[in-house]
């Protein structure tokens, strides 16, 4: 009873709350880091160094008036933010945050579940998230959101192909689709997959930026051209849901990249006797540290790089990333067959 219901439910509650709190603080982190990159201070008013800014933002968004445009499709207009938020959250079901820990005399695994199609689950749930964006643009009955949502969905679908093809080569390396097994495979091979699959790592990183609509691929919400993108007509809490979904997706991408390429909860040089002392740091701490590095990298890239043009974006996706991904997969397969 405790093992089948109580512990999973507790884990779900903890993971969802931690995610939402993490997401709100991601917003603060992003504003701070970009401010520092531009020699500004960023939010400083609410609490010391603006540490309570997310609370103020949340209160503001919740008490704002929630407007539905008159000619909008009310049903879809309400459903769209929910559709984009839910996939961003349910992905966390398969992400392993750490290995086992013993709590109150009970061995607890630090992931909600480990299904044997975990990686495919992540990809497929992410692919369902596109609907939120398309429907938001369509339901708003307004031209900028419609243009933005067409751009966004075309971008997401194109880069999804490249990312999925790249992930296959990681699966070939690990021999399993389960996230936990992929980490274990890195433990057994004594090396993180980032060193065995550097090309795949770069491709997934670029694809992940595009999948989360982050700069330099943030065309769907280009303020200068589209007045904010597919959520132009949204206000209040429904706008906040889109915003939170975007940041939750960023955390998903960084967690997945960490799991697949940086050994998840493993310390550097896993399973090497000389570096055994690294295991004194708890596994979840390694995971959080590595994910944080990626989140910081995302913000850093946004502060550094200018935005792509739309045709450049499509060319990059279809004519560069996908061919490289296929070549990488073929080479991986050949090497794997020859060496094993």
């Amino acid at each position, binding site marked *: 009873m405790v093992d089948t219901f109580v512990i999973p439910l507790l884990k779900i509650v903890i993971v969802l709350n931690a995610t939402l709190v993490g997401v709100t603080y991601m917003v603060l982190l992003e504003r701070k880091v970009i401010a520092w990159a531009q020699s500004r201070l960023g939010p400083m008013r609410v609490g010391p160094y603006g540490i309570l800014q997310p609370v103020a933002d949340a209160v503001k968004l919740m008490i704002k008036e929630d407007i539905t445009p008159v000619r909008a499709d009310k049903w879809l207009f309400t459903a769209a933010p929910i559709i984009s938020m839910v996939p961003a959250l349910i992905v966390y079901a398969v992400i392993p945050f750490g290995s086992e820990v013993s709590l109150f005399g009970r061995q607890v695994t630090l992931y909600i579940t480990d299904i044997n199609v975990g990686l*495919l689950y992540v990809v*497929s*749930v992410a692919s369902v998230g596109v609907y939120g964006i398309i*429907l938001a643009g369509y339901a708003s009955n307004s031209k900028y959101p*419609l243009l933005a949502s067409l751009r966004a969905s075309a971008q997401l679908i194109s880069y999804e192909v490249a990312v999925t093809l790249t992930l296959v080569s990681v699966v070939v390396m690990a021999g399993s689709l389960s996230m936990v097994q992929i980490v274990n495979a890195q433990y057994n091979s004594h090396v993180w997959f980032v060193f065995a699959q550097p090309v795949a790592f770069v491709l997934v990183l670029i694809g992940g930026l595009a999948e989360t609509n982050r700069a330099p691929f943030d065309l769907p919400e280009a303020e200068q051209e589209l007045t904010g993108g597919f959520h132009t007509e949204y206000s209040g809490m429904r706008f906040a849901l889109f915003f939170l979904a975007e940041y939750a997706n960023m955390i998903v991408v960084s967690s997945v990249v960490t799991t697949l390429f940086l050994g998840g909860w493993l310390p550097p040089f896993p399973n090497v006797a000389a570096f055994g002392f690294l295991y004194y740091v708890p596994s979840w701490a390694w995971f959080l540290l590595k994910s944080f590095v990626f989140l910081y990298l995302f913000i850093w890239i946004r502060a550094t790089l200018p935005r792509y043009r739309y045709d450049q974006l499509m060319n990059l996706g279809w004519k560069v990333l996908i061919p490289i991904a296929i070549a990488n997969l073929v080479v991986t397969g050949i090497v794997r067959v020859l060496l094993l």
Partner: protein
Amino acid sequence: MGEAIAFYIIAGFILIFAVLVVTAKEAVHSVVFLVIDFLFVAALYASLGAEFLAIIQILVYAGGIVVLYLFVVMLVNLKRPPEAYADPHRRTTLGFALSAAMLLEIGVIASYGYVKPAPALAAVAAPVTGNTEEVGWLLYTSYLIPFEIASMLLLVAMIGAIVLAKREL
């Protein structure tokens, strides 16, 4: 017991959303109901122990094919309602009658199977365990040629779609 409850809930939702797909006035609503319907079908597959197929259903159907439909519905933005004109020769009642007859026919066959269940076949053991591994093993051994043909079919369909949809080549 749990299996029965799960089946009836999932089956009920599948049928409800299928009816909504067919009866929805606006094509966009129809597409949304279709996605939800496919997600429930995926849940049914998962409950049948076909988790790989369930995920493929979500990935390919819900995340790929239906997005195409949504795109086309948005591109085909009509100034007049799409069902404004009805062919006078159309026989809608006949359509309902034919469908009902077919349901009856399949139902009879199914209930015949219920009365006289087929003997259970011995399971063919694959050299691998796990649903994904088993499906993969079959795809790349016994069904390799159909698999390759399917990939050729997809390639041809892709080229065909480009040729059809492009304004000028």
